């Protein structure tokens, strides 16, 4: 990554193709990076917060995915997670607190470089511990965190920026476009490619009947595991026409987004349209169904699409400029106050004292910095190549046509940072079958209870003769329900967890003497109808085993 100023890059018009390409694909405004950092940190905090209710369930050995079981039969050969060290709930809680602190530091941009790396480690740890219940949203968030780790997210709108400005004795204004030059890095290209390919393959893979006839949105609304209250309310109002409009609309938006993101021409227009499409698509999706952190992770990419022209347009609006200036001044004042309060002394009474001293320009140090920059760019380029090869592995559209051999080290580079590129959400078809898992457990005193549903959703004991409307599972539970019937290696943990029911309730009479765990499925109603049909249940795990 290098910093470019008009004087160092020559003419701003860019007469050569190379300059044009660099400007189009490798350059980003530091204000976009600053805003992107805030968006990213907020989504990371949201991701952490949504995991808290299931902390004991997914991150401790009292839950459904004990660390020893995940290490015994790992979903992937290469995993990195500090949460494998946590066996007990309090240990996992401590890990969550540390993650929260890291994300908060990233949010305010304090020691940003360090906390970018720590945030990446925290996120890998959180996600890789529970790969069995992860989804595309987790991948997208991890990939955003990975690519931005190569970029200087703390140059604007951060505590670091305030301190640096004070050190230079030139306070930046929110509207000052020239306070910091644009950033040039391979990671910018990687970020754009990442976003574009996720939409591209999601769109290209959607060739099934539900997308062709326009019933996809209608079908998705009948996924009771993930549908929201608004989605349930919408069901009777989802006419065939509306379903077609929404299905085709989302397909068109997904299909248009890659060219809009990657277009080298008229970027001011194309990028703005891309942001608008992304907001519409993902806010709409989030209103209908709960897909975990997916929508918010995708929205967090949006600030990185903002061009300098957008920032100039924003600063040209007087009110916004004023508000930005006021916010910036307040933030600086706050940093000064905190700095003085925590390190007051005559010698440290100025904020500049909080910043590290400016190092003298030593040729060896400068050369080392250049080398480090080169190494960082090289690493980003390598990971970009890995991303491109992974597209040929994870996407049926390519993998069925081109058989690409991946060496082991490339597979490891994909698996460790979860750089997975399998973009098949609701593809080739929206699911036409709804499913859930229920447990029929008999207690010592003869009652029938469902310890699983009691914990997973809003129905304590739904039974196996129907799937009730809106189960209200979180994304972890609905992924677990969808996968556990077909992964017998993890049944032991499910069995132990069910049998530990009286430990959780604290009542001895809840001791379980028998249970059947079943997968319940139904066919979603065709377009124009509202009632599911053909409910069927299949027991996949019984205890005691016969």
């Amino acid at each position, binding site marked *: 990554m290098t910093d470019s100023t008009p004087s160092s890059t020559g003419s701003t018009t860019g007469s050569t193709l190379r300059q044009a390409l660099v400007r189009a694909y490798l350059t980003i405004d530091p204000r976009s990076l600053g805003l992107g950092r805030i968006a990213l940190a907020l989504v990371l905090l949201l991701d952490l917060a949504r995991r808290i209710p299931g902390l004991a369930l997914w991150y401790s050995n009292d839950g459904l995915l004990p660390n020893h*079981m995940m*290490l015994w039969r790992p979903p992937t050969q290469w995993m990195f*997670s500090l949460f494998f060290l946590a*066996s007990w709930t309090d240990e996992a809680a401590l890990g969550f607190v540390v993650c929260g602190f890291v994300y908060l530091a990233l949010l305010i941009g304090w020691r940003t470089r360090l906390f970018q790396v720590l945030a990446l480690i925290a996120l890998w740890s959180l996600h890789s511990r529970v790969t069995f219940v992860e989804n595309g949203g987790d991948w997208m968030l991890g990939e955003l965190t990975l690519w931005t780790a190569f970029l200087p997210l703390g140059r604007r709108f951060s505590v670091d920026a305030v301190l640096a400005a004070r050190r230079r004795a030139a306070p930046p204004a929110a509207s000052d476009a020239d306070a910091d030059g644009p950033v040039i890095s391979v990671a910018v290209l990687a970020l754009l490619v990442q976003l574009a390919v996720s939409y591209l393959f999601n769109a290209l893979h959607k060739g099934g009947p539900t997308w062709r006839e326009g019933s996809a949105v209608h079908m998705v609304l009948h996924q009771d595991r993930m549908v929201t209250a608004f989605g349930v309310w919408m069901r009777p109002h989802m006419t065939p026409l509306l379903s077609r409009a929404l299905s085709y609309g989302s397909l068109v938006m997904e299909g248009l987004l890659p060219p809009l993101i990657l277009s080298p021409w008229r970027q001011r227009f194309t990028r703005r349209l891309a942001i608008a499409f992304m907001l519409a698509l993902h806010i709409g999706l989030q209103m209908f169904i709960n897909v975990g952190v997916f929508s918010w992770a995708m929205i967090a990419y949006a600030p990185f699409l903002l061009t300098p022209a957008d920032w100039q347009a924003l600063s040209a609006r007087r009110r916004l400029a004023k508000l930005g200036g006021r916010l910036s001044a307040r933030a600086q004042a706050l940093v000064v106050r905190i700095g003085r*309060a925590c390190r*007051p002394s005559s010698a440290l009474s100025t904020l500049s004292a909080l910043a590290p*001293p400016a190092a003298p320009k030593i040729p060896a*140090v400068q050369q080392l910095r250049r080398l480090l920059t080169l190494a960082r760019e090289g690493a980003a380029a390598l990971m970009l190549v890995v991303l491109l090869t992974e597209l040929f592995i994870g996407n049926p559209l390519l993998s069925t046509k081109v058989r690409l051999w991946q060496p082991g080290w490339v597979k490891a580079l994909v698996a460790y940072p979860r750089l997975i590129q399998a973009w098949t959400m609701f593809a080739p078809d929206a699911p036409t079958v709804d499913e859930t898992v229920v447990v029929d457990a008999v207690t010592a005193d003869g009652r029938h209870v469902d310890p699983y549903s009691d914990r997973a959703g809003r129905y304590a004991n739904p039974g196996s003769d129907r799937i009730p409307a809106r189960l209200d599972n979180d994304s972890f539970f609905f992924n677990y329900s969808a996968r556990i019937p077909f992964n017998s290696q993890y049944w032991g943990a499910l069995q132990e967890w069910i049998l530990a029911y009286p430990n959780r309730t604290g009542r001895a009479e809840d001791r379980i003497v028998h249970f059947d765990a079943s997968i319940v499925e139904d066919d979603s109603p065709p377009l124009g109808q509202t009632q599911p049909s053909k409910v069927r249940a299949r027991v996949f795990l019984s205890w005691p085993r016969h």
Partner: protein
Amino acid sequence: MRLPARGWISADPRSLGLGRIALGLALLLDLLRRAPELTLFYTNVGLLPNHTVLWQPTVRRLLSMFFMVSLPHEAVLAFVISAFCFLALTVGFRTRLFHALSLLATLSLHNRVIFIEGPGSTALGALCLWTLFLPLGRRFSVDAVARSLRKHPDLTAADLDAARFPPADTTPVASLAVAGLLLQLVAMLGLGFANRQGATWSDGTALHYGLHQDRIVTWLGVWAREHWPQSLLRAGSAVVLWLPLVIAVLVVMALLPAVRVGARRLAMVLLVALVIVQTSLVNLGSWGVALLAYVPFLMTARDWEWLSARARRRAVTRVVFYDGDCGICFQSARILRRLDRLGRLVVVPNDDTSLFPPGFSIDPALLEKTILVVDPASGRRRIRAQAFAEMFRVLPGAAPLAFFMRLPLVRTVAGRVYDRIAVNRTRISTWLGLAACGIPVRPSSPAEVKPAMAEKTATPTGSPICRGWRWLRGKKSQTRELLAAFVLLALGSDALAANPAVPTALRDLRPDWVATLVGYAGLQQAWTFWAPDPPLGDRMVFVDALTGDGRHVDPFNAAGSRVHELPVTAIPARLGQSALFAAYSARIPERFVYHQAFLEWVMRQQGRPGDQIVSFDAWVIDDDSPPPGETVARGGRPRLFLHHAPPP
């Protein structure tokens, strides 16, 4: 905190510096001995997969970063990182940080395989923990040199004059951690003695029985058990039994000022003797190096003065002529001056002949080309890389480096490296930001203001959190002492609970949370090695596996023993197992929950296609060690503890 530098709470910074080096080397040796068994015990293709240990841990709560490691290359990376931390601690680079990281690394290494750990790892971990509270980097460290370079920015060659040089730091360190460290040593040795109340220790046959542990006995131990008369073996038993107690008493006697120095010196000598006796007869893993690492911490200021006086008695002097206009040469001279605490080097720049010692006649052209070291007594001159070797030879503690630089091939390489640097010294100096005159360019900055000074002028403003934080920063040493006291209480109460020799009334004093905390660190204070008696019988595990081509092999002993021939009818003499492998052999037959991992490991052992194992029987043989006066074991009892065959 400055407390009276007396008895148990005070330590000389030189002892701490030397102790740091000993600790770092002990940690490196401990890591090195584990390296050959990295795959076997630290990966999921070995005998103790992480999932097995996490599923059925031998201690309820454990901390080990190695639990994240599943694959061999991950374990190698973790070993390399650990080695880097230990090396940085040894040389004293960012000592506090790397000390903390070394503690984490060593606890992780030990706790990952706690099922097969011995007392050595606890002793080493405890030493690493106690010394964390002490400033180990104040002497003999990169940090100390760097600190001195920062504090005294020598501006001219005259500043390098030994007479003007500030005296070395000998201010004693006072901390509860010193007492904790000494108590740790006393507990290890004293409780070890107290727990040995069995009949074999009373009748003096303990060593005889100990030497019949063929898994861990050394070749010298085998020779001793076969050739030493019973009287000598009894005397050996008495030494092994009583020596720890004597050392513990001597360490306690350091409370008496009149005998402190003598008692400590005797304790050091006896400790070294104990280690030599024990480790020459049986393989106890890292127990020996761990005990040796405690020795430097017993050294007093009087010992250092004695050593210093002895060293000064050797009137060794070398005159070093260097290029005074060269930045790196001047910086090298500054560093050498700081390493030369005995004042054996007279550093002289070549640009001012008035500074030359009288009677020296040097060709200025030679000094333009190379550094020159002259022995004034013999007049012998050394140039280029060998000049550095000569300087290292006379510098305290650097003689091994001089020896290394004089090795045939190294000598040639060092000479070439020196020549390259010498030719390009001006360019290198500029590249490193050193002025031609060698004065470092370092602007002073407000950040260099001492925090202590800043805190003194602090005004009580800010939020309660900030005020609390400031208060804590101001009370850094008090906080550290409180933490040390807490550790002392925790380990002390654990020692009371875990040792059978402690009266029953005292054993219930340990709260549960203390047991949990001690368990996390893997520092359980049960000193029961060969207590109450050494084992009266020996044990060996072997596997009789049938390969695809019909051969019988023993993959288990092939992986860790000197002998792996089938059939096994009796335990062969000296199996030559490592301490970890020996402990695994002794414990696995009864640890049923780990048998599945054992089974999977055996079934994975194959080289050529014909080597593929189709079925196996895992046996344990227990025998009775021969009674005193005899040399052949009796009553070998083979027992099948695991059988695996393909389903019919």
